[in-house]
């Protein structure tokens, strides 16, 4: 991301896989953090902490980031963002996305955690514009 500063925009979409039982609460928790203004720091924390996503863990990560505990708990327990996560899942289905991670780089599908050089090559291609 850094080397493409200003030239690349990243949009994260939730695709909690059914085989990952705690992925969905984690996705909802990240959105709760987002509603409190700290989406990306919480997102990074989750990736560093995987797969420890029990409720107590999710709350601890929030308080580690100095998020207001009560507001975060209320958001998490009310499943405020369940529908939003579900909407992302529906979009993934509509796009034929079946595995994580799947990327669309200016609309071009790019599946799996591939080597950084492959990423660079597709991004550089996109930066050169449509053919």
């Amino acid at each position, binding site marked *: *991301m850094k080397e*493409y500063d*200003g*030239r*690349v*925009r*990243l*949009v*994260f*979409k*939730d*695709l*909690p*896989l059914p085989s*990952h*039982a*705690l*992925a969905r609460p*984690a*996705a909802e928790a*990240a*959105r709760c953090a*987002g*509603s409190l*203004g700290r*989406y*990306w720091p919480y*997102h990074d924390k*989750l*990736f560093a902490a*995987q*797969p420890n*996503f029990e409720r107590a863990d999710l709350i601890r990560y929030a308080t580690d980031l100095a998020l207001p505990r009560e507001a975060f708990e209320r958001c998490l327990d009310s499943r405020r963002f369940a529908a*939003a996560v579900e*909407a*992302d899942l529906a*979009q*993934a289905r*509509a*796009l034929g*996305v079946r595995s*994580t*991670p*799947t*990327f*669309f*780089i*200016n*609309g*071009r*599908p790019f599946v799996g955690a591939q080597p950084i050089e492959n990423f660079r090559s597709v*991004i550089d291609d*996109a*930066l050169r*514009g*449509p053919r």
Partner: protein
Amino acid sequence: MWSVWLVALLAGVVSGVGAQTAPAIDADPSMVKGPPTAPVTIVEFSDYQ
């Protein structure tokens, strides 16, 4: 309630890989990094586990 704005992120899909009906991808503003003017948009579908 947070606001969600629709972006025609996947306009490229239509011309790029021949998808006939590219669904519009909506983005939660808090889940976006980088300027809206960036020439390249990467949409990442992922989970945390």
